[in-house]
């Protein structure tokens, strides 16, 4: 735990934790709005956005990538809406069509673009490149107070820290409108809340988190972090505030323990080398969700109405 740790492991661990927090926060509301699939879709369409940005600008600047991927995410949301309305298919089917097609287009573009020369290839798109985000200028803990060394931090860290702050501020500032509109959109509208704008803002914020996390940790981890920690937390509590805090704790737990397990797990089991940190973190969050499903106090679903009032038979008028 010395200079090696600061140089090789500290930054990836912080980035993993930030990515986990940035995704889990909006993930809570997507989950309760039954829009988890939308997060899945957004995290996939980030790839074509990044590839197109690279082709247009020729650089791998993370801020340019953020913008390009954000545009792709919004484009996909519009496309999904368009397909649902014009073809009248179920939203899940429209999402599945859009995000697989766009992701596949991104893969094809990647193969042909030569972008793989700058750490952009299919493997990175899926698993990210967490382990390579090292802090070369670091020389032990004192580097944390050394402006020169700090200037050498990977740009992904700054990007994720900024996005996590924006996502956090969004959820804190709009906590009441978000929670009312998520539970009862019609009632929220009668309070004068702009429910459609809120719903769109949530998607934009989730897309930002996905995009920022994607370049560092890949799409698999983005999906896992959007859904697993909130879903596990939902099973452990019946209050929204508690659920969100718990999901953040679980997200950080998965990020840190997953990173350590990926680095040392194989060694402890007697194998050489290590495994993908992003893959291990996603696996750990899956295990956490499984444990919550088996032991969570609030895993039972009760009281949901089985039929809508519209299904009730009418009494004959003045028979």
């Amino acid at each position: 735990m010395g200079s090696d740790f600061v140089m090789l492991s500290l930054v990836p661990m912080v980035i993993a934790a930030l990515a986990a927090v940035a995704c889990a926060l909006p993930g809570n509301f997507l989950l309760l709005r039954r829009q988890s699939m939308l997060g899945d879709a957004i995290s996939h369409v980030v790839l074509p956005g990044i590839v197109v940005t690279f082709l247009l600008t020729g650089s791998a600047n993370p801020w340019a990538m953020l913008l390009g991927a954000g545009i792709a995410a919004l484009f996909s949301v519009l496309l999904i809406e368009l397909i649902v309305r014009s073809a009248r298919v179920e939203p899940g089917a429209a999402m599945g069509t859009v995000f697989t097609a766009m992701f596949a287009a991104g893969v094809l573009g990647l193969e042909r673009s030569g972008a793989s020369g700058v750490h952009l290839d299919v493997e990175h798109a899926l698993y990210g490149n967490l382990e390579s985000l090292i802090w070369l200028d670091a020389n032990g803990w004192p580097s944390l107070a050394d402006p020169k060394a700090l200037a050498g931090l990977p740009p992904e860290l700054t990007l994720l820290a900024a996005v996590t702050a924006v996502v956090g501020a969004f959820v804190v500032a709009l906590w009441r409108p978000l929670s009312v509109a998520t539970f009862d959109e019609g009632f929220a509208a009668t309070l004068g809340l702009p429910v459609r704008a809120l719903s769109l803002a949530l998607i934009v914020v989730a897309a930002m988190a996905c995009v920022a996390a994607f370049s560092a940790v890949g799409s698999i981890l983005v999906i896992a972090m959007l859904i697993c920690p909130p879903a596990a937390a939902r099973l452990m509590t019946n209050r929204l505030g508690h659920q969100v805090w718990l999901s953040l704790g679980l997200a950080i737990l998965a990020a840190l323990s997953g990173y350590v397990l990926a680095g040392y797990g194989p060694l402890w089991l007697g194998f050489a080398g290590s495994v993908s940190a992003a893959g291990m973190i996603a696996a750990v969050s899956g295990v956490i969700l499984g444990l919550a499903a088996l032991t969570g106090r609030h895993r039972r679903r009760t009281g949901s109405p089985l039929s809508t009032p519209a299904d009730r038979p009418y009494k004959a008028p003045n028979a």
Partner: protein
Amino acid sequence: MIPQRQIAPVASLTVPALSISGLSVAYDDTIVVGDVDARFMSGTMTAIIGPNGAGKSSLLKATLGIVPTLAGHVAFFGEPLDTVRNRVAYVPQRAGVDWDFPARVLDVVLMGLYGELGIFGRLRPSHEKRAMDCIARVGLTDFARRQIGALSGGQQQRVFLARALAQRADILLLDEPFAGVDAATEKALVQVLHALRGEGRAIVAVHHDLATVPAYFDHVLLLNRRCIAEGPVATAFTEKALAQTYGARGAAHA
């Protein structure tokens, strides 16, 4: 007899709690509510009745701006909704929300105070006490800290009414408040609504059970895409009007 439409005398006493004129609602080029005129006075309780697909819920939602209107004008206490929102409460259909949401009864009732508190207003113990009073009024005190998904249908409907009570509104619009609730709950809800009417508030409810209309309500609006009849139960709730409302659906467009 339906009262003849005349130019209303300008006096605050006669400003309706809700007045709707020429309201039309359409979904995807299909008109679901056409050209409805209606007035709802304070201290009255009105049932909106009509067959399935008559546009009852749509009328309520359009009045509140939840669904867009094609044409028409809506005024609450003579003002546009935006300026008097905190005098208006809406109780949606119970089946319209996901009761699996992580909230307790108290949390949902506190949502009734959000209009007053705003986004950042501090929730004080006095607010919680007010919410608990509303919960007591619908007989759910022992359930205040239960998760809403653990309640029966009737209890969930009581939660919604308690939330509306917390809003201290002068007009309540309820969408099928008695749908799928037990007899005891129906009785309790009617009692609370009658008390509110006694306080001079206006109640408007989408209702299904024609047999209970005269006992529960004093006014009716018979709706089948358009307004068939409107007025006091004694004069508007007639066999003829009902036959017209529930008769051949095509009659609405004849």
